[in-house]
């Protein structure tokens, strides 16, 4: 347990610190950033939610999805279709509808797809995303390459967002709320069941956990929040097009999770921010930026296989290793002897976070 967790267990349990953290960020960002940088932070916030929702599947439950863009796109298209047919519908209702549609699609899909596992399951998710992508071209009311526009005018409660500052507050509020829900889920029995299923599905089943049900639920939760992220992005950029269902999106969000690391709750948050900002900053400096962004991300993933969240722990460990030994060697079999896959020893604090 962290220091804050030990001192204020109620705060940690209720996730108040998550809400406070997002509130502080919401207030501070417009003080330091405006114009395009603030919009980039808004985009990064959306990707934070997308990465967190992907982490529910990939990090918490151990299910690899190559088709997470399917749910991102379902969210965006659901919002666009509701806006086209019932433009007076409040934006928050649209977000709920997007989450519901994606959750139902995901649950039905998972019921069948989870008869497979590992690479086969990952390929099936890829197929789902590709089929939906193709449908946008084949089904006339999805408007093919033209897509939808005018989503800036979505009413949030009774009025549309009229500035990028309003968009920032709205986006960060929704993202903060969703991440808070994920925190509660992470700390709940259901969250622990997901991690147990990830670590050893056979043992979990032997302990009485309904593995299939846990996996289907994780898939539905992940899809619902990915859909909310997709709908938020659609509102932010004002348009929805088939590109939102592309494999590139599915790949990028996995990269974001890997960069941040999934051993800690906040890893994907860090990964999403680094991904969006490195893309933005490098493309402002170089014409062929994609290659350099790819290289940078590759370096991060190779240098830090546990993601950026493992950086402080590694620094601490190196400092200890290079300094005079102040702690007597741990007895064999203690936590300090356990190693994470990259070979670095795990401290007691890190071990807690890894769970």
């Amino acid at each position, binding site marked *: 347990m962290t220091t804050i967790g030990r001192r204020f267990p109620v705060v940690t349990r209720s996730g108040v610190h998550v809400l406070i953290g997002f509130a502080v960020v919401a207030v501070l960002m417009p003080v*330091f*950033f*405006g*114009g*395009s*940088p603030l*919009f*980039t932070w808004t*985009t990064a916030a959306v990707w934070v939610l997308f990465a967190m929702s992907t982490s529910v599947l990939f990090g918490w439950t151990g299910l690899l999805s190559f088709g997470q863009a399917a749910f991102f796109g379902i969210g965006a298209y659901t919002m666009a279709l509701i806006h086209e047919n019932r433009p007076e519908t409040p934006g928050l209702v649209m977000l709920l509808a997007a989450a519901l549609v994606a959750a139902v699609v995901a649950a039905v899909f998972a019921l069948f797809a989870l008869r497979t596992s590992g690479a086969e399951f990952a390929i099936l998710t890829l197929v789902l995303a590709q089929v939906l992508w*193709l449908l946008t*071209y*084949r089904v*006339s009311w999805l*408007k*093919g*390459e*033209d*897509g939808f*526009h*005018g*989503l*800036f005018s979505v009413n949030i409660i009774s009025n549309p967002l009229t*500035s*990028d500052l309003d968009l920032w507050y709205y986006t960060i509020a929704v993202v903060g709320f969703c991440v808070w829900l994920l925190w509660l889920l992470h700390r709940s029995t259901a969250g622990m069941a997901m991690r147990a299923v990830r670590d050893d599905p056979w043992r979990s089943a032997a302990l009485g956990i309904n593995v299939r049900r846990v996996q289907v639920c994780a898939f539905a939760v992940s899809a619902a929040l990915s859909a909310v992220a997709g709908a938020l*992005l659609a509102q*932010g*950029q*004002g*348009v929805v*097009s088939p*590109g939102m269902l592309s494999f590139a999106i599915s790949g990028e969000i996995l990269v974001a999770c890997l960069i941040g690391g999934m051993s800690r709750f906040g890893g994907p948050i860090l990964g999403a921010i680094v991904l969006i*900002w490195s893309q*933005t*900053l490098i*493309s*402002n400096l170089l*014409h*062929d*930026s*994609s290659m350099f962004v790819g290289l940078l991300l590759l370096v991060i993933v190779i240098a830090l296989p546990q993601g950026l969240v493992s*950086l402080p722990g*590694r*620094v601490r460990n*190196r*400092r200890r290793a*290079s*300094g005079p030994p102040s702690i007597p060697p741990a007895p064999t079999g203690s936590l300090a002897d356990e190693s994470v896959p990259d070979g670095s020893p795990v401290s007691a604090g890190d071990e807690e976070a890894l769970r």
Partner: protein
Amino acid sequence: MKNALVLRTTVALALSGLVLAGCGKSEAGSADEGTVKVGVVLPFSGVQATIAKLEGQGAEVAAKMINDEGGIDGQWEIELVEVDDQLDPARSATVVRDLNDEGVQLAIGGQTSDLCKSSAEASQRFNLTFIGAHCTSPELVDPPITDNFFMIGQQMTDLATAIGTGLAKRYPDIETWDVVTYDVEVMRGSWDIAKEAMEAELGREVTVGEQYSVPIGATSMRKEISGLVSAGDKGDRGLFLGVYGAGTTSFIQQAKPTGLLDEYGVLAQTGVYWPTATALDGEAPPIYNVHDYFYACQDDPENDAFVAEFEEMTGEKPDAGAYQSYLAIKLLEAAVTEAGTTDSAEVQEALQGLSIETPMGPTMDIGAESHAGKGGVTTALLQGDPDAPQGVSITECDVFPVD
């Protein structure tokens, strides 16, 4: 210890770089007296970078020609600000904000419909005037998707009508048409419109032989090519291609060994062919193509000046994309002159109903209500020729004014 220090320093530098790069609340920079900044929003990196480069050069040539004559109305020199949307609507929404941060209030660009939409929606936030130079979807105009958006790319309906009419005039003996299109409504529809125009011109029904739709982005068309090969005698048959980009290249490369391309009475294509044809180094098969503009088809002093300037700057001939960018800048010049100011709102008002002379002959008229530019459409036969500029000859030109 040393490693830890390096690590900490790296992280600190990265974070401070991040903060510094984005820090400081951006404020709209004011345009200098005597200069007007014009944004150029194109995918300068990625799969369409080559096309975007030519399009950007078209804008540069127009700006240079205007500046060489003393600037817009002798008052404002054009300063182009190029930004890369990476063919991504989310990115285009960001770069339009970058333009606004730099004080840009007039912009052109938009490679595809979704990029035009995204740029138009984002620019509406700041009432930035945006001319969609390369998008062609009728969905974007009449009424325009946003008040600040104007489109000058000729629409697929006009392109398909022109190629249908041109084919009927030039190749009246073709009885049957085989068709290969992308499996998207706009490309399938392009054949339907072209067929209708052919039938109207010929006064008889046109027979459709083999007809295939391939997934958009498909690069293997062997199955369709086998079907075409077995379709019998092709002397009086034509092949209509509704594909573009990598699809055209793939089709040509896979069909060439079968001899199919030489057997047909005529090959026609509604998608862009020029970049593929020039890439084939004098070996491009003859294809009857349609686009807004082919440099060799216009006998006009302004066109001669544009082509000469473009060649001097780039060493190449301008393609239709370069022409569209050139025209977009010329339109902004005319609108600023008409408005007597570079103020975005007044430029938008001036653009509504504006007419300008174009290098290709017909005038470009911007609809006051529709915000759609009606200019002309050109059809021509493009064929590999090692002796022609860039290895492609352009013949059998027809210019169709668009009503």
